[in-house]
């Protein structure tokens, strides 16, 4: 018998199962976009047939990092910017788990930028949701890597001299194999995109636009938005790197010019890191964590390595 019986549970799941009881109540501000992510996830997870116990959500620090405090899955609320290294190791250690990592734009594109680049490059089989509200929320409204040029805040009183990061383009050049943008104001699209991302075998990056009414009062609330797949104005091949890249570029410019474009931008079938490691014999076929519960497992000893030292 497996030691991880939740994994592969085939029950019909009610989304209430992903909601904790009365405790704890979300501490997010009224109108915060983070509620949108929580809602979309709660809907998406049961719809792809997952139970709360076969999912591990790993978050960083920020308002966004509280996501798994209000979502009843196995959770790991880590430290600022470090959700990805924790998440990918958990996935390597137990390949049976569904791993979803999440954090803010400061968390994911600032302090955790290096991890983002490398996790995408390696194409770890997991979903990564970045709550992009263009500010630092939890530390009270400082300028973030996605704040527009000229943005004023307590730390940039004369306006932000830096141009914002291009998260979609960055994910693409780094090597992510599923890239999308959605918005809290569009829960249906968000849910569908999260479902695709979870089912995608590889690193799925979702730049999730979440309004922060408290610190980004003049932020557009990402409405009206345009779904690039639904609109006749945009036509590009989602599997074509070059076309996707151009479309991303346009989307990233448009955001700061007042047009909110969302949708899927790139899907690639490059094998996941886990799969490649298995093919190279660098990772066991069965989840490594299972071994510790397997009474028949043969544990090799260093004693067996001594020949070369004699």
């Amino acid at each position, binding site marked *: 018998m497996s*030691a991880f019986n939740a994994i592969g549970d085939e029950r019909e799941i009610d989304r209430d199962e992903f909601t904790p009881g009365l405790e704890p109540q979300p501490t997010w501000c009224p109108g915060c976009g983070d509620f949108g992510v929580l809602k979309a996830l709660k809907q998406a997870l049961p719809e792809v047939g997952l139970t709360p116990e076969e999912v591990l959500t790993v978050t960083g620090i920020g308002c966004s990092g509280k996501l798994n405090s209000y979502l009843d899955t196995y959770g*790991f609320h880590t430290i600022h910017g470090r959700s990805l*290294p924790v998440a990918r*190791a958990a996935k390597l250690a137990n390949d049976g788990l569904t791993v979803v990592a999440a954090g803010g734009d400061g968390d994911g594109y600032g302090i955790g930028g290096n991890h983002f680049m490398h996790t995408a490059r390696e194409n770890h089989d997991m979903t990564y949701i970045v709550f992009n509200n263009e500010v630092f929320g939890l530390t009270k409204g400082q300028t973030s890597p996605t704040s527009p040029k000229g943005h004023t805040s307590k730390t940039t009183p004369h306006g932000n001299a830096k141009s914002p990061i291009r998260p979609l383009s960055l994910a693409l050049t780094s090597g992510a194999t599923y890239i999308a943008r959605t918005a809290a104001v569009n829960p249906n699209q968000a849910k569908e995109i999260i479902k695709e991302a979870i089912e995608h075998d590889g690193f799925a990056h979702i730049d999730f636009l979440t309004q922060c009414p408290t610190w980004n009062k003049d932020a557009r609330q990402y409405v009206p938005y345009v779904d690039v797949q639904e609109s006749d104005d945009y036509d590009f091949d989602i599997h074509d790197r070059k076309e996707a890249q151009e479309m991303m570029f346009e989307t990233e410019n448009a955001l700061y010019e007042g047009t909110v474009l969302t949708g899927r931008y790139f899907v690639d079938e490059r094998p996941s890191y886990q799969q490649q*490691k298995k093919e190279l014999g660098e990772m066991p076929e069965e989840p490594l*964590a299972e071994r510790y519960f397997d009474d028949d497992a043969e544990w090799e*000893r*260093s004693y067996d390595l001594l020949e070369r030292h004699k």
Partner: protein
Amino acid sequence: MSDHELIWRIAGGSGDGIDSTSQNFAKALMRSGLDVFTHRHYPSRIRGGHTYVEIRAAGHKVQSRGDGYNFLLALGDSFARNPKEGAYYGNEEIKPLSENLDELNEGGIIVYDSGLLSEDDVESLNLEERAEENDWHVFDIDLRSMAKEHGREVMRNTAGVGVTAALLEMDLEHIEDLMRDAMPEKILEPNLEILHDAYDMVTEEYDFEHDLRIPEGDHEDEQALLSGSNAIAYGAIDSGCRFIAGYPMTPWTDVFTIMSQNLPDMGGISEQVEDEIAAAALAVGASHAGVKAMSGSSGGGFALMSEPLGLAEMTETPIVLLESMRAGPSTGMPTKPEQGDLEFTLYTSQGDSARVVFAPANIEEAYEQTRLAFHIAYEYQIPTIIIYDQKLSGENENVPVSFLDREPDPSLGSTLTEDELEDLPHDESGKFHRFQHDVENGVSPRSLPGQKGGRFLATGNEHTPAGHISEDPDNRVFQMDRRLEKLEAIRTELDEEHDSNQTYAGDESADFGIITWGSAQGAVLEATERLNDQGHSVKAVGVSDMMPFPEAELTEFIESVDQAMVVEMNATAQFRGLIQKELGRYGEKLTSLLKYNGNPFEPADVVEGYELNVDGSDAEPDAQVRIEPAAGD
């Protein structure tokens, strides 16, 4: 003569094959029944530059490189030999000879490659005169031509070994066997020819007047030659560690490499990642998901790990981290040992943080304490750190093969099965109480993601029993007290269930004590023996438990002497500071002997330190060793 010993030094340029040659020669000595200890000196440079390996071999246990040495094989630095004036590698091919003369003992032997070193260069060293003064026996032999004749010039190492064997009247049998194992067919034949040619030539053409001969020894058990890094890696493997993540940094790289080369073949995983923050965070993630995991680095890289280290403490995720010290601060001296990261390792990370720190002193302790580190980490859900240094990492010693023949330990410690989870307290929503307030020893058993009935939130914020973020004062105090309680429980377990990790030596009734830690221990133990042989009365303790500190043991030791000298390889007496902090007194009883010039202690340094302490002489110690006087309480 039973205490007769060989200390053989092979010197050349980095990249000249010194390492592999010396490794084989050390094994040959081990196979002939001797105890061996190797010491590697190398510059922070990939090719060229003066480097040497020393092998000490005797019929009795050897615990340090010893004082000086008695056989020099100077090969010349082939990377320094560059026909172009002012070429990149410089023009210092004489260095393997010139740089090594100061430490060669009286009566020692010098073999140098006259095929590589110019006569003018050698003349400039006044070698003849110095040889006469010191009773050295000099053999200038054209190893280069000998090697070229049968094969290639790089094989002059083999010629050097042949000459060594002839001069020491050593049997070639073990050397040949090892060459057969290590070399591909194509180069084996020429190498064997060179070995025999060199041996025969020296035996036939030279009369030796020196006394140095191969020592005699005998082992009861089969032996293996292991480095500290081997011992730590093997200790981890036997502990069931099947996940390692890292980023290269000297000297930690050695363990990382050994693990990476073995883990995948044993169904484990090794990850080279983007930086050390990621590396330690990966270890946390893997352990959280139910795999025994480790990471590590050296000073600068370890600094980056302080964040995930704290996360492991707060979330009570077991991990083992290695801190392989080199001289600091900052990038410091990458290839030189120092014990300068002790305080940093004990206290890095914010808050009242608790971790367990072991400091093994030799190859056997490195293995044992790595196993202990994994056991404690998983049983008590606490990060454990093994602090060691460049010296222990790279030196080799023989250990009986039977020493490592132990059962693997795949136990995940205080982890629950799904059946056990069913009976434990849960929230209304089904969350499991992962972090209970009142548990024995402070340890609240954990569940693993994917288990039925074990759902919880791990968080680096302070949290309730179910894992919810909380700033409630009562909960805070309960949780903090419980986490800290583990250290006391660990101290009790170490005292009661394991043999002491501390090493004692010398005369029990002695009034003078020497206290040391980590890799300085070998030199201290030899010095203690020597002092007692000379009629002094001295005892020593080598401490391995840095946190939790072995309060009772150290109190007893210090109480039993009038004065004690703390020996460590750093400039600020960090370990002495720790003793005084942990025991809260003894400032007036403790002096320090400090060395921080990049070279480890040798027994003579410690003997000298003792004499200065006891005689109160005004003389400045040699070898850039410093005495730090006792302080008031």
